[in-house]
């Protein structure tokens, strides 16, 4: 669990009404990658972080933030 990093993927998914699988398919990763990033168990690379932000059409700082 990353104690320093916070993310808003779950909230953004609910707003856009998409499942973890749909988000995973859209950015080309496994659902497991999305679920572990969302729960803070896994810290993604900058590339994945930017792809998630691009998918929601917002800056990466609005998806990930330091606690």
């Amino acid at each position, binding site marked *: 669990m990353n104690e320093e990093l916070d993310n808003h993927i779950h909230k953004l998914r609910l707003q856009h009404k998409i499942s*973890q699988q749909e988000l995973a398919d859209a950015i080309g990763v496994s659902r497991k990658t999305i679920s572990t990033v969302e*729960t803070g168990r896994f810290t993604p690379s900058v590339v994945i972080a930017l792809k998630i932000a691009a998918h929601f059409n917002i800056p990466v700082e609005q998806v990930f933030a330091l606690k």
Partner: protein
Amino acid sequence: MENTVLITPETEQQYLTYTGKISVVFAVFLLATALSSLDTEETVVSWGLGLITLISAVSAFVISLKSMKFSKHTTRLGFWTLKFNDEYVDYVSALSLRTTCHVMLFGGLVLAYFGDDKWFIQLIAPLSLSSMIQILLSIALLTHGLLIMTKMREDEADE
């Protein structure tokens, strides 16, 4: 040339899970083989260990054959060195290999350094040094397999 067609994160995930299962089955096989050397008489325990050895050997063969189908659906690097494109799958693969490497290094160091010492041979008796190596390999494989299977089952219901 590397095969770049049909490589999905799910395929990589399935292949890594298969390798985890193979490791666990091989670990059981090696452990049963090592423990069989303790009991040379025909008792229920020796029959049980023999049966476990046979079942695990057949299972390892069958799962290994099944995993061969992934050679067409993963990159050559991914298939042989367990390096994957999907970040989480690659993270789990690297973590399990790193932990296994540490187990082998520390265990191997002890066996290589003290293996011939009289006190060590007395300590592990009635096991032989080769049985101890089998047990060490078994622990390493079990670490590899169980780590993969545990990490791959985490967050299964988080949707």
